[in-house]
């Protein structure tokens, strides 16, 4: 089966993205976000970095990343 099957559609800074990341941590790794100087909100709610491992991404989530030139 094509690998897109496990891709999830999310919006990152107003752009559609497909990701295989299951958590915010995995998404941050996939987008190669730096280890500091980044803030991420899911559906408007800012998520402390300590919760990134445990925060599960949902299909259709609206994600805001405060880091220039991310999620390109």
């Amino acid at each position, binding site marked *: 089966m094509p690998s897109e099957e496990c891709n999830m559609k999310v919006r990152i*800074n*107003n*752009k559609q993205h497909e990701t295989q990341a299951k958590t915010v941590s995995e998404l941050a790794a996939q987008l190669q976000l*730096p*280890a*500091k*100087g*980044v*803030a991420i*909100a899911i*559906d*408007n*709610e*800012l*998520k*402390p*970095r*300590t*919760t990134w491992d445990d925060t599960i991404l949902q299909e259709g989530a609206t994600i*805001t*990343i*405060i*880091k*220039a030139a991310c*999620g390109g």
Partner: protein
Amino acid sequence: MLQFISHYTDKYSYLDSIRLALQGGCRWIQLRMKDATDDEVRPVAIEAQKLCKQYGATFIIDDRVALVKELQADGVHLGKNDMPIAEARRLLGPDYIIGGTANTIWDVKAHYAAGADYIGCGPFRFTTTKQKLSPVLGLDGYRRIIIEMRAAHIDIPIVAIGGITKDDIPAILATGITGIALSGTVLRAANPIDEMKHLTNIVNHE
């Protein structure tokens, strides 16, 4: 997203205001002490940073790039009369959040090109917090700026600021604005923690 900008009243110090905001669920704090020196700001900033770490909140300081670097805060917010964003980016490198104040789409474009991570855009309406005033934007001003940002493929978050009350929040977020910055309105409430909880609820559920 809600950003709280520190403020003081007869009743509450800068640090109190930050503590109340964190207790009320805000996870993005800007320490702003406009007329103080770096030496006056440093001890407050150190305590504020500790509080923010405790709550997992993002901690940025208004204007003071050197202090941000010294304390390794999460970032800096630069107003129109502060250090240019490109220079701050050069001094801080990529691992700090840099926000810039914009009143027009031209400001937004210039800040984005200079390497800003987010925009603080206002004033939404007339405010007494800031003495140097730019023309108020209102909802139409935000709508126009959002349309032009999208046309220019500028995808950094944009936070509305300036005289915003809780009743304004849904309509502002409906324009495509990604966040709200608040200052005075929280401390003026009878119970600032409850007020902040209410405000974070409104923002997080829009």
